[in-house]
């Protein structure tokens, strides 16, 4: 059979970022995937050079809506190195708590999206309902559901009061029970098993070679986590386990994330109990000394990297961001090789990309000269129908 190419994208307004893939198909099997990035270029790095350090903080928060606190944490940790200041210990604990709450909300959101991709919309509704509890908690602590504006250079803006801590503990108890239930569902439910097990396998050697990050590489059994390898904030004081699964398939990545929610719950409990007292912020000057710094943070999707160069003025001279999704794209292309067309949505979703969804798919069947356009929704429906007809391979 001749190789057929399907371009997927680049317009995907339903999820965050547009990306384009060209899939080479041999019948139903994907034999190659070629990404084309850059459609969502917003010029944020250049814009930051025209903003003061304080203004650029809010800009960095808006790079990603879901892991916004990972971005600000990375920004303030890097900027604090440039400014030569250190946040007070209590502020560091608050950063850990907010970051972990953010991780729980991001992973629950992702679990819902994955459930939606495999046609398990019941679970999608339940996870998003539970995620709402985390968002309420974050709103109570920071004043907003999504863009928290809690980090600032030299500390955090809001304290966590004892009443808030009590409320958070209650929500953590509820979420722990729910997450354990989701884990049971992921392990036992035939829908998840049929669609996720042995799909989109990434071998440990490939994961290392292609520099995958976050749950994507941990799902392949490689123990790496910036929170452990290069601790920031108070992560060197809060105990936690780095979760790994050896299978490397989409199911392993799902279980990694579910277990990470459980770890995060324990970390939040520990941090709430062991928070030191004292100030939550220190004063920082308007201008940093000339210099440069890099910072790394474990965002929900993996390692996030910032670089800030200062020339002694009020504005950063250079500002550079590398987000985890970019690091995972080569690994994703490797995972896409050898899978069925019907598995594309699941495998792409399994890296939790900020570019998860394919909203428009243009199909060109070269042998017949036929052309048609698929939306992401149609691709999803096609994949569900295909599995209904073919069942388990």
């Amino acid at each position, binding site marked *: 059979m001749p190789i057929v190419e399907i371009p997927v994208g680049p317009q995907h307004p339903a999820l965050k970022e547009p990306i384009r893939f060209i899939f080479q198909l041999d019948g139903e099997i994907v034999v190659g995937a070629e990404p084309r990035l850059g459609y969502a270029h917003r010029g944020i790095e250049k814009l930051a050079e025209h*903003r*003061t350090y*304080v*203004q*650029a*903080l*809010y*800009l960095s928060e*808006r790079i990603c809506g879901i892991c916004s606190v990972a971005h600000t944490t990375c920004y303030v940790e890097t900027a604090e190195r440039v400014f030569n200041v250190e946040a007070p210990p209590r502020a560091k604990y608050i950063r850990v708590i907010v970051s972990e709450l953010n991780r729980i909300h991001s992973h629950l959101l992702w679990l819902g999206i994955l459930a939606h991709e495999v046609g398990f919309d*019941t*679970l999608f509704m*339940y996870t998003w*309902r539970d995620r*709402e509890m985390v968002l*309420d908690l974050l*709103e*109570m*602590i*920071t*004043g*907003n559901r999504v*863009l928290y*504006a809690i980090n*600032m250079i030299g500390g955090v*803006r*809001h304290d966590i009061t004892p009443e808030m801590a009590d409320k958070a503990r209650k929500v953590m108890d509820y979420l722990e029970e729910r997450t354990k*239930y989701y884990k*049971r*569902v992921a392990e*036992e*439910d035939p829908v998840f098993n049929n669609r996720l097990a042995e799909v989109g396998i990434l071998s440990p050697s490939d994961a290392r070679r292609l520099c995958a990050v976050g749950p994507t590489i941990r799902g392949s059994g490689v123990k790496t986590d910036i929170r452990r390898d290069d601790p920031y904030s108070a992560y060197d004081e809060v105990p936690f386990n780095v979760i790994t699964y050896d299978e490397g398939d989409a199911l392993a990545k799902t279980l990694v994330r579910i277990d990470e929610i459980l770890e995060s719950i324990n970390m939040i409990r520990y941090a709430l109990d062991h928070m030191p007292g004292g100030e939550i912020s220190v004063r920082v000057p308007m201008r940093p000394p000339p210099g440069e710094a890099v910072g790394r943070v474990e965002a929900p999707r993996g390692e996030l990297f910032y670089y800030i160069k200062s020339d002694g003025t009020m504005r950063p001279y250079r500002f550079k961001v590398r987000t985890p999704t970019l690091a995972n794209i080569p690994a994703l292309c490797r995972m896409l090789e050898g899978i069925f067309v019907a598995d594309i949505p699941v495998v792409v979703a399994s890296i939790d990309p900020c570019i998860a969804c394919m909203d428009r798919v243009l199909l060109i069947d070269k042998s017949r000269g036929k052309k048609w356009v698929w939306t992401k929704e149609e691709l999803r429906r096609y994949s569900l129908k295909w599995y209904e007809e073919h069942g388990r391979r």
Partner: protein
Amino acid sequence: MSVIKEVLRNIISRPVTLKYPQERKELPERFRGRITIDYDNCIGCGLCARVCPALAITMVNPPGKKDIRSRRPLVHLYKCIFCGQCALVCPRKVISFTHEYELASYDKEGSVVAPPFVKKGNKGGRELSKG
């Protein structure tokens, strides 16, 4: 199969969604809604306008006055990203956030927080469209 049990339980339980706008969620105390400025105590230093990341604040002069001292901040709510930085830097702590979150309006007057001397009914006025 455990999902079936869960589904059955949810059929008889109350929905988690609220019937907005008849029912409303209780907002936490730190919620950042529409900005209010206590203009009587504002000293017109202009720090809030300088620090705003969205450039949502312009300093406007009362009619007939040109000096820097008498300028007062005017907030364009459609530009504001509700980050709260202005309230943080204000030396007099006169900026605060209300719990009002339905900010859509039909005219420019409703979309700004303006000092009392900016004339009402001044829909396309210079002060309102500046910035």
